[in-house]
């Protein structure tokens, strides 16, 4: 039995310990905010925060997060008012929106690590997250806005 804390709630899993965290979150725990985009850690749509680090849930197994704390988009802020979320809305970032949970989690992790990233640092830190709609200019601006106060 694997125990993992997700958004502050203890969850347990007695199935395949190698099950990717992504599918545990989405199909078993019903937390569908974390998205599947590639399954190979190439696109970042499944980004969640484990302890204080952004990880790709598609290549992280449930047993890898045993005893650790996982934060998904649903748990980032109780009212959805994390500075990154607010900045995202202020800049009108999303088009289709599908990649945005992963983008937001990646940006939130970046700001925990580096509260005032430069534009180059934002571009570097966010380069693992693909947006096929091409919202990059706004993503960059929103991360910058979140870092300077929304």
């Amino acid at each position: 039995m694997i125990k993992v804390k997700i958004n502050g709630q203890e969850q347990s899993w007695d199935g395949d310990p190698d099950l990717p965290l992504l599918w545990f979150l989405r199909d078993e725990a019903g937390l569908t905010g974390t998205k599947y985009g590639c399954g190979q850690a190439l696109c970042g749509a499944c980004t969640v925060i484990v302890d204080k680090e952004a990880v790709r849930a598609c290549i992280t197994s449930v047993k890898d997060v045993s005893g650790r704390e996982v934060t998904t988009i649903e748990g980032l802020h109780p009212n959805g008012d994390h500075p990154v979320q607010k900045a995202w809305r202020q800049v009108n970032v999303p088009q289709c929106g599908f990649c945005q949970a992963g983008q937001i989690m990646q940006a939130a992790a970046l700001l925990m690590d580096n509260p005032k990233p430069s534009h180059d640092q934002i571009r570097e830190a966010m380069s693992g997250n693909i947006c096929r709609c091409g919202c990059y200019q706004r993503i960059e601006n929103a991360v910058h806005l979140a870092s300077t106060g929304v």
Partner: protein
Amino acid sequence: MNFIDNPRKLRGFEKHVRVEKISRRSILKGLGVTGGFVLAAPVMSRQALAYETGAGKMPHGVVVDPRVFVSVAPDGIVTIIGHRSEMGTGVRTSLPLIVAEEMEADWSRVKVQQAHGDEVKFGNQDTDGSRSTRHYLIPMRQIGAAARTMLEQAAAKRWGVPATEVKAVNHEVVHSASGRKLGFGELAADAAKESVPAIEGLKLKDPKDFRYLTKGQVGIVDLHDITTGKARYGADVRLPGMKYAVIARPPVTGGTLVSFDPDAALKVPGVEKVMKVQGWPWPSKFQPLGGVAVIARNTGAAIKGRDALKLVWDDGANAKYDSVAYRKELEEASRKPGLVVRKEGDADAALKGADKVIVGEYYIPHLAHVSMEPPVAVADVKGDKAEIWAPVQSPGGTRDDVAKTLGIPEGNVTVNVTLLGGGFGRKSKCDFALEAALLSKELGAPVKVQWTREDDIHNGFLHTVSVERIEAGLDKSGKVIAWRHRSVAPSIASTFAAGTVHQAPFEIGMGLADMPFEIANISCENPEAAAHTRIGWFRSVSNIPRAFAVQSMVGEIAQATGRDQKDMLLELIGSPRIVKPAVKDLWNYGEPQDSYPIDTARLRKVVELVAEKGEWGRKVPKGHGLGIAVHRSFVSYIATIVEVAVDDKGKLTVPRVDTAIDCGTYVNPERIASQIEGAAIMGLSLAKYGEISFKDGKVQQKNFDDFQVVRIDESPVVTNVYIVPPGPDTPPSGVGEPGVPPFAPALINAIFAATGKRIRSLPIGKQLEA
């Protein structure tokens, strides 16, 4: 075979391809099934409004009925139906916003409800062809005005005053003479009893009184849900007892399953069942390819189970499809005369007599859509009833196809439209929903079919592959006197009819036969090309290769004659005029020529605007270059200037992009900018990396590592968007797609300016490193 002459043979094709001359519509409309008033096409009478659109010719045409689209609750909440699919353009916000504007509803008290697939009730729902605003601006205004009028009539009756004395203002109706007011909620029950006013008598708002339209102040309705993970896409639908499925499909288009061994898959924890999926022979429109499904308690187990399957396929007739060999075929075909689709003057003679002939042969390979949400659908089939939840661009077509596939009446099928995690044309094909329906029927349980990214790339409906060969003949003064453009590419029609070797009229009308230059001798030709995989619509469709070729050729002519690219472009466009190509039934995106002519004044205007705002001719650092391109598509006009920087090692960066768009009358400039910014990224992706190639009939790429798209660290530093202010009666035109086509040629022209290297084959790949 010309499929346009055989529409009955291609039922369904008629419905989904933007082909003119569809008569089935008027019959369906005459049935008046909703009980509301269903308009005869065309919707807009020229007396009342300044333009007509092709909306009435779309399957099931347009329904203008406030009782279908608007409801007002006693608490004042106004619910407006969004009947088009939201894939990122903002349409789920902008169409209801038009209704709210016209009915004087307060947007903060409006809820948007997504329509299920029902074209008899809602009118056409095919969200493609950059058509939503252009077909629905006026109908949505009429719906809003009709609802407003009903509320006003109800208030006037309540007060016993003439309706002319009352006025709806911001969610209430006021009688200014007496100072009385009633909220929309208080009037809801009475207003519902009012008869729906005739469209001809409706008074639309003066645009100067607009509160929302053209202002760009309203965020998309799903913004909060998207940023908090609550937005529901197709993949997010969960039903009690739902099973999770992934499917192993034939690796070669048209291949079939010979045998399979499920034993190892069944040993994977969480896997419950392995079963065959019915397939259809190629081509068969959007019907499933067939294969073997692994059913599990979660998607992860299903994927792991599929990896363990032992499968034997018969690869079928396309087993030898090889992109290297196929390219040679296309190139050879482009060097010989082909079916002439436009002829003006005598291009052959003029080319022979020309002082100089410039030849460009341009290649663009297959592309995959790779929307961030791969295809996915949930189906729950019980007896002769089916319910579908899916991110589909064509809810009506999906309903139709599910009914046919299961052999049940269309009325027994409910298609719930979720948000689409990107579409780009891929989700106009509902094969994934059909797969889910077939599996659910057999399992007797709800099932979700999830495509992996590899599935999306291996088994999609790809953008065509093409060779575009242009020969331009110049006289002694450097004036272009002859133009021969041969376009060779497998047609989308090949996905509907075996043996198709020519482009369909709607493809010929995308930048080939509608070429706007003022040249005396023109020949546009379409040599034969057979398809060996499923070809489908991809955002901007044939405009991508055509604009790449035509606008690169402009750069080549400027290069050969030592002229400025922009001056050369304006010279070729020529005088401000209406271009009427010598083409029988030119497609024109399904729009009437009178309202949507090919207007070179507008084409010139976007070039001049982008040149001014984008500071064409500005001094750029060493290693940088500027390129320009313009293209009319989806009846909009767009010009782009790209600045590139290429370093000593051939590394390409894009410091700045400027784009001017004339999309006529518009609704939300903020979303227009967003679409154009995104189009630059998609244009850069396809130019830099975009290539799906085949060997032994199989796609060679598999995921985002070998089918790359642009990431944030290589995206343009800044993209500026300029929108041409429309005239008072300029019809609305497309926004979602037109931004893509001019990007690649502007980029390529910029690369030439920076490096002296002329790239004629996409993707750029490592060509700059050589």
